[in-house]
């Protein structure tokens, strides 16, 4: 646009140059002036033609008038020159000259009109641009507002989804923390990752609960196994303990036996038959206790040992006590650990009868009752208070019952029985201070 303005200015300059060279020619008749007059005129026309290619409507109308006026100027000027060249007087070409001059002024008027037109056009274009600018600004503002609104809405929805899902997950995990593995997956969000997360969470929880279940099962199994092992161990332990006791009690059995044999031989030689039978009883008990350590015995064998023991005690204490044995069971079919009965009987002796001045009675009753063999060992000794009972039943090492033939305490005997039959109700004891003691053994009969 500025370009057009400058071209317009150039046209003006060229026209005026052309006219002044024309004047010069009229004054001086210099060919150079004529050439220049034509040259500048041509330039002006060229410029006008150039502007016509690229102008608004109003300016094009003015340009047409200008171009025509320029042509008129050329014609008038050429006529003037022609008349002048014909060497006519001034009065002849004067009118033509004046007309030419007038046309130049008209051309200048058109040129200034053209400038105005361009200026106005610029102004309108500028206004248009300004309006457009405002319009675009408004559009952009609206655009931005709408975009913001939409994104805000979307964000809110999105965040709402996320928080809802997360809350769900949080509450679920809180539940999990409390050990509740029931997780219901809520509705789907439209956020891929979250859905994957919740799905994974759900799977994880199910896996965890399954895993925990299996762990519990395993633990259960292991516990059972452990229990079994413990039982076995304690059984073996009890065995070992009894063996140990026995071993501790052994002072070279061969020596003992040989000695005892030697003594009994001597007793026979000296005609001391009582002594001989005593020694045989002791040797019998000893042999039994040694040989039966690592196998179970029948009740019959047990009873025999008890009888031999009682025989020895009878000789010791003569008539300070009475011993009764009642049996109405087939003793062969009942199996117990070796040295089960003897310790109870010995207990009855040591704690029941011995402390009593006037002595007492020891009864043993072996009966059968519905698949069980009940063994009652009863004494009319001094009995025990409850503290004593507890002490007897406890297994504390400082409470080792002393003076037992076999060194076996009641506790370990009972334990062996329990382990063997895997029952808790095998042993029971009742006692009262000064009224004696009753021990019940309830042993299942294995056909």
């Amino acid at each position, binding site marked *: 646009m500025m370009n057009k303005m400058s071209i317009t200015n150039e046209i003006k300059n060229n026209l005026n140059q052309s006219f002044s060279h024309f004047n010069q020619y009229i004054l001086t008749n210099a060919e150079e002036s004529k050439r220049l007059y034509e040259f500048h005129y041509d330039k002006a026309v060229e410029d006008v033609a150039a502007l016509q290619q690229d102008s608004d409507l109003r300016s094009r109308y003015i340009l*047409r008038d200008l171009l025509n*006026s320029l042509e008129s100027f050329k014609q008038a000027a050429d006529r003037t020159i022609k008349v002048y060249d014909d060497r006519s007087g001034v009065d002849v070409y004067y009118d033509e000259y004046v007309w030419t001059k007038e046309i130049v002024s*008209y051309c200048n008027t058109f040129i200034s009109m053209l400038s105005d037109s361009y200026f106005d056009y610029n102004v309108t274009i500028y206004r248009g641009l300004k309006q457009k600018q405002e319009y675009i600004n408004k559009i952009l503002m609206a655009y931005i507002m709408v975009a913001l609104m*939409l994104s805000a809405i979307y964000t809110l929805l999105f965040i709402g989804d996320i928080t809802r899902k997360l809350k769900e997950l949080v509450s679920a995990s809180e539940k999990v923390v409390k050990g509740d593995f029931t997780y219901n997956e809520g509705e789907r969000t439209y956020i891929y990752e979250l859905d994957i997360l919740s799905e994974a969470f759900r799977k994880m929880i199910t896996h965890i609960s399954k895993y925990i279940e299996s762990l519990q099962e395993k633990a259960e199994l292991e516990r059972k196994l452990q229990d079994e092992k413990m039982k076995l161990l304690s059984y073996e332990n009890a065995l070992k303990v009894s063996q140990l006791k026995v071993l501790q009690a052994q002072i070279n059995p061969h020596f003992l036996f040989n000695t005892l044999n030697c003594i009994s031989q001597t007793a026979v030689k000296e005609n001391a038959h009582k002594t001989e039978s005593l020694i045989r009883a002791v040797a019998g008990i000893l042999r039994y206790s040694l040989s039966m350590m690592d196998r179970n015995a029948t009740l019959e064998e047990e009873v025999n040992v008890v009888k031999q023991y009682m025989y020895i005690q009878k000789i010791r204490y003569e008539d300070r006590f009475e011993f009764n044995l009642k049996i109405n069971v087939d003793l062969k079919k009942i199996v117990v650990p070796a040295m089960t009965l003897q310790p109870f009987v010995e207990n009855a002796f040591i704690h029941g009868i011995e402390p009593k001045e006037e002595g007492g009675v020891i009864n043993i009753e072996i009966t059968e009752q519905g698949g069980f063999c009940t063994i009652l060992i009863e004494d009319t000794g001094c009995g025990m208070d409850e503290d004593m009972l507890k002490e007897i039943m406890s297994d504390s090492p400082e409470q080792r019952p002393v003076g037992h033939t076999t060194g076996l305490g009641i506790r370990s005997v009972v334990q062996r029985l329990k382990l063997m039959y895997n029952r808790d109700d095998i042993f029971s004891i009742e006692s009262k201070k000064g009224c004696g003691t009753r021990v019940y053994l309830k042993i299942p009969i294995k056909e």
Partner: protein
Amino acid sequence: MKRLLKYSVYYLAVLIFIVFNVVLLDSLKYEKPVEEEIKPKIVLISHVYANPYWKQVRLGAEKAAKERGVIIDFQGPESASVEEGIRLIKMAYAAKVSGIIAYVQDETRYNDVINKVIEGGMPLVTVDSDAENSKRLAYVGTDNVEAGRVGGREVIRQIGTEGKVAIIMGGKSVKNQIERVEGFKSYISSNSNIVIAAIESSDSYLLEAELAARKILNRHPDVKALFCTSALDGLGAAKAVKSLGLVGKVKIICFDDLPETLDNIEKGIITSTVVQQPYVMGYKAVNIIMDNIEGKTTKGLFITDVLVVDKENLDEFRKQQQEYYNESQ
């Protein structure tokens, strides 16, 4: 439901995005000026550029131009000036326009330039005022003598064939004023016994016209009607009559259709006005030029009729004017 909302939001967003982009791109487009072919041009040179009377001439001319595929370049001096008028004609001639329609302000001084244009082979038509002795192709306009006669007929229609009237004219030496008075006189002298009590001139100034009217009414209280030959004379007379309380007693017959004149007719202060038809003049003039360009030689005088506008046909007249105006929009 939620899904539906979600998807509708998505689609809405996309739609809005697209619409906005289209609107934006559309608004960013640079509109190249429409390469309209420029048309031949006829220059219409008026008496005074801003005169409403000439606006009507222009409207008529533009109507015709639209029909004949040319454009009108309406020009005129800011205020009446013979030199400027002549200069505009010369300028149009130098610019080799297709034709010139000119108002002649001064016959004697215009003859030369008109002849120069015609000799240069450019059609020129005079409008509203003529240069009879020039070589102009044609004249389109009112016959002012005839217009004066029409005014006389109207006066007789209003006051009968007896009594006194007075005349207020514009410029004493202006051709059309003289012709109007001439026509008026000739008509009433041959058609009635009406006596002309006085002739006053206002030089086409409103105040002067009012003073002239007062003077006449004071001196000749028995005057039945005032005949005013120019637009402003009528308005001045109306003011005088109104202030002297003679409304209805003294008839005013004047010229032209200024809005104030029409308002006064509506109020009954001015009785009637003789109206020329500038619209028709403009229309006709352009057609004559075009006919000549297209090879139909059209020459001579083209007289446009005058109308008498009074209270009866005022509305119709106004409607007509409005239509002319609307057409040009």
